[in-house]
């Protein structure tokens, strides 16, 4: 397996065009084909909040070593319209090539000064000849790009065929489209500078953070997903809706986020592992229910996919601006867990674990993600299902006594025996009012304080559980000159930056905070020497939590708050700047 890009050891393909041209689909197919050929890939989509027109682009990077993020550079540009050429030419690597529709008749020699070559392909004409729909232009372009970068057309064809499974005519047409594009470029012998040589062992899987969370939930036995559509969480709903038969699950598009949260709580009360997902605006609407889950001690898992706010903000972009809201949102005081995965693996394993935590402690667990993480594709090894175990905590199925069943029994660890309605001989109360051990409402001073204390006694056990889950993860050099700190979707570019810094001769490490609440102990020991905090927000919210929990105040930060994820180079540059 070999991979040589024009700039480094990755090959980067950008597919640009209008919304509605099937750009995201194309990028995902190409990535899957590359994975099948043994490459590590990362793919992400940049799109504004509109359905047709505008400018979208997908960036795909492939390499023989793991890739964790996008970069601003492209070796190959697949330009599905003229505009894309203008927008992306400036960030192409020298030696790069633009595959575009012959019909666009680009100005001769465009980009030549920067060593960029134009590779016109009769995209429209081929589609016309094949009698396919306009959108098939991108399939032709994919074939052309494969030829350019040395990717085997057969794999691509097979991936496409699987996607259209059962629709033979469409499959045939697409295969032809790929072949035509491939042949057209292969015949030209452009002598393109990128080189990809397939490896033996195909990668395990190619999926988004949302996909991984959905699978993690399935693995954990989640059987109920209720949500109201909201970018970037909608794909979770689509996944559950389209896999309800296969997964044996109930998926509901609710009338609002309030209903979504309340349904998840209702299902959980009735004994089902359930989940809801949303973004910041929807999470705002869920906070009252979150508080109910806490008071009634009903387990609840919420996926909060961040995007830039406040308010509607930038609906289709990325941010990390809801951290403190996730930690402190909702009225009253209660225990919760906020966990922020940083790649697709963590999305899977932590989503699965979220259900155990929610049930063991009978509390809400918030899976805090961001658009970059949940909507971007990554290759990774097949998930290891043996690493997923199911622990439902203190469940009782029948009641021997002593006395009547006490749903809110004042147990030493703060966690009371949980039963489900329908169990013979047990009646299960749940109450939003403060209550006695038997669930009946109370306002007695002593009973109230006792119940508050009971719930708070969970804290130490939750903390212990979290500490056992590697809440802080460290990557890179053991004796670093500089420590990078970050979380969530910033992990990918930070890891890429570590490699760049290594090449620059700078020993660096990246400290990822995975659990935000309860805040893990021991971070202090990494906050030595020069430290730089990177977050996709304006006010360095992880910095706030770190200051609060360790007393450490960052002198150096790198913040991005225009809705775009960091580029690894920006992180590297900022680190070098700090190092002086």
């Amino acid at each position, binding site marked *: 397996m070999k991979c040589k890009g024009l700039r480094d050891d990755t090959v980067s393909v950008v597919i640009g065009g209008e919304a509605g041209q099937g750009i995201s689909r194309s990028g995902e197919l190409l990535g899957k084909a590359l994975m099948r050929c043994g490459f590590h890939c990362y793919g992400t989509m940049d799109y504004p909040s509109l359905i047709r027109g505008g400018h979208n682009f997908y960036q795909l990077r492939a390499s023989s070593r793991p890739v964790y993020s996008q970069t601003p550079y492209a070796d190959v540009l697949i330009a599905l319209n003229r505009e894309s050429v203008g927008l992306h030419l400036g960030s192409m690597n020298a030696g790069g090539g633009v595959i575009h529709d012959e019909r666009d008749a680009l100005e001769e020699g465009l980009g030549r000064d920067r060593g960029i070559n134009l590779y016109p392909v009769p995209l429209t004409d081929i589609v016309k000849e094949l009698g396919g729909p306009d959108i098939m232009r991108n399939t032709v372009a994919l074939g052309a790009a494969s030829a350019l970068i040395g990717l085997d057309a057969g794999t691509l064809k097979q991936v496409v065929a699987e996607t259209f499974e059962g629709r033979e005519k469409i499959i045939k047409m697409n295969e032809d489209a790929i072949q035509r594009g491939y042949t057209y470029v292969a015949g030209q012998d452009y002598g393109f500078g990128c080189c990809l040589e397939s490896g033996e062992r195909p990668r395990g899987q190619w999926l988004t953070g949302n996909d991984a969370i959905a699978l993690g939930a399935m693995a954990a036995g989640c059987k*109920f997903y209720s949500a109201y559509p909201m970018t970037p969480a909608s794909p979770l709903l689509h996944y559950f809706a389209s896999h*309800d038969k296969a997964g044996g699950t109930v998926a509901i598009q609710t009338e609002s986020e309030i209903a979504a949260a309340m*349904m998840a709580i*209702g299902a959980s009360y009735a*004994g089902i592992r359930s989940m809801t997902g949303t973004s910041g605006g929807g999470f705002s609407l869920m906070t009252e229910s979150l508080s109910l889950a806490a008071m009634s001690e009903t387990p609840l898992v919420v996926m909060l996919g961040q995007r830039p706010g406040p308010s509607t903000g930038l609906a289709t972009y990325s941010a990390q601006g809801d951290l403190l809201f996730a930690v402190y949102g909702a009225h009253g005081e209660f225990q919760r867990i906020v966990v922020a995965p940083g790649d697709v693996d963590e999305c899977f394993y932590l989503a699965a674990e979220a259900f155990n935590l929610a049930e063991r402690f009978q509390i809400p667990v918030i899976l805090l993600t961001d658009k970059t993480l949940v909507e971007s594709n990554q290759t990774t090894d*097949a998930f290891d299902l043996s690493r997923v175990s199911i622990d439902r905590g203190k469940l009782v199925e029948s009641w021997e006594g002593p006395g009547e069943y006490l749903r809110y029994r004042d147990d030493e660890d703060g966690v009371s025996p949980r039963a*489900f309605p329908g169990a013979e*001989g047990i009646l299960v109360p749940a109450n939003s009012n403060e209550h006695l051990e038997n669930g009946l*409402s109370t306002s007695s001073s002593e009973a109230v304080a006792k119940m508050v204390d009971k719930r708070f006694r969970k804290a130490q056990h939750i903390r212990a559980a979290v500490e056992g889950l590697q809440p802080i993860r460290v990557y890179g050099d053991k004796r670093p000159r500089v420590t990078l700190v970050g979380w969530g979707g910033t992990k990918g570019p930070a890891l890429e930056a570590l490699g760049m810094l290594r090449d620059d001769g700078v020993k660096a490490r990246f400290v990822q905070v995975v659990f935000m609440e309860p805040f893990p102990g021991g971070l202090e020991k990494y906050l030595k020497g020069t430290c730089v905090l990177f977050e996709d927000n304006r006010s360095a919210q992880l910095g706030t939590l770190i200051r609060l929990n360790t007393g450490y105040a960052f002198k150096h930060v790198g913040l991005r708050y225009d809705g775009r994820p960091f580029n690894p180079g920006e992180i590297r540059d900022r680190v070098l700047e700090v190092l002086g």
Partner: protein
Amino acid sequence: MSLTMKDLDTGATNTWCPGCGNFAILMTVKQALIQLGLNPSQVVAVSGIGCHGKTTDYLKVNTFHVIHGRVLPAATAIKLANHGLTVLGFAGDGDAFNIGMGHFPHAARRNVNMAYIVHDNLIYGLTTGQASPTSRQGLVTKTTPRGSAEPGVNPLTQSLTGGATFVARTFAGEAKHMTEVLKRAITHRGFAVVDVLQPCVTFNRVNTYEFYKQRVRKLEEEGHDEGDFEAAYRRAQEWGDVIPIGVFYVEERPTYEDGFPALAGGPLVGQPLSRDLSGLMAEFK
């Protein structure tokens, strides 16, 4: 061994005002459960916040006292999670038709298989007497010192328009009528709305027992056709010297749970958590 009223009593001190219509509702609900021979452990009562919401403190079945206005989504999910259970929702008029209004037509069109009992006292009880969405025009309350200006929400026409498959009204002063209506609502397969005219003796001095006694007329004594939507809608609009009570409309339609393949094999809660994921994982390979 058959159930007694006492078996359904939690022993909690009842804090409703003496004379409150809620007592009769609670009693008839218990009677209905007994007469239907239901096992309390197979019944779930979900209540909102308000005087009505205390029902779950007094009714010894499985209970979830949720937050204001959210009985329906919670109850919907409980039913889907375990459709073997009998699900009862208890809501106030404010709970159901102000803060909870956004859920109502959706539960109705989904035909969620449950009984939704609205303690309709035309006032906010627990918060000490503000106007409710069902307050009639002119009602003087703490928030409408010159009388409520807007026409009230009509729970029955809302139910009919929303698509509820069982629409009824009864009166807390008519225990037998109420029991019969509740029994039908509970056994109805689909979304059954029961609007209970419930005198609030403390804050609503207009819509009293006397007020209703003089006005209620039983539909069943007037040859009403429960299958006739138009007639139901017409009679549901009446509110004056005559206030019809009884079952306005009944329809059979698939219930919400019928639409989920995962439920075909029995209640979701009974199915094992682990499953073979290879098919799902293969999609990403």
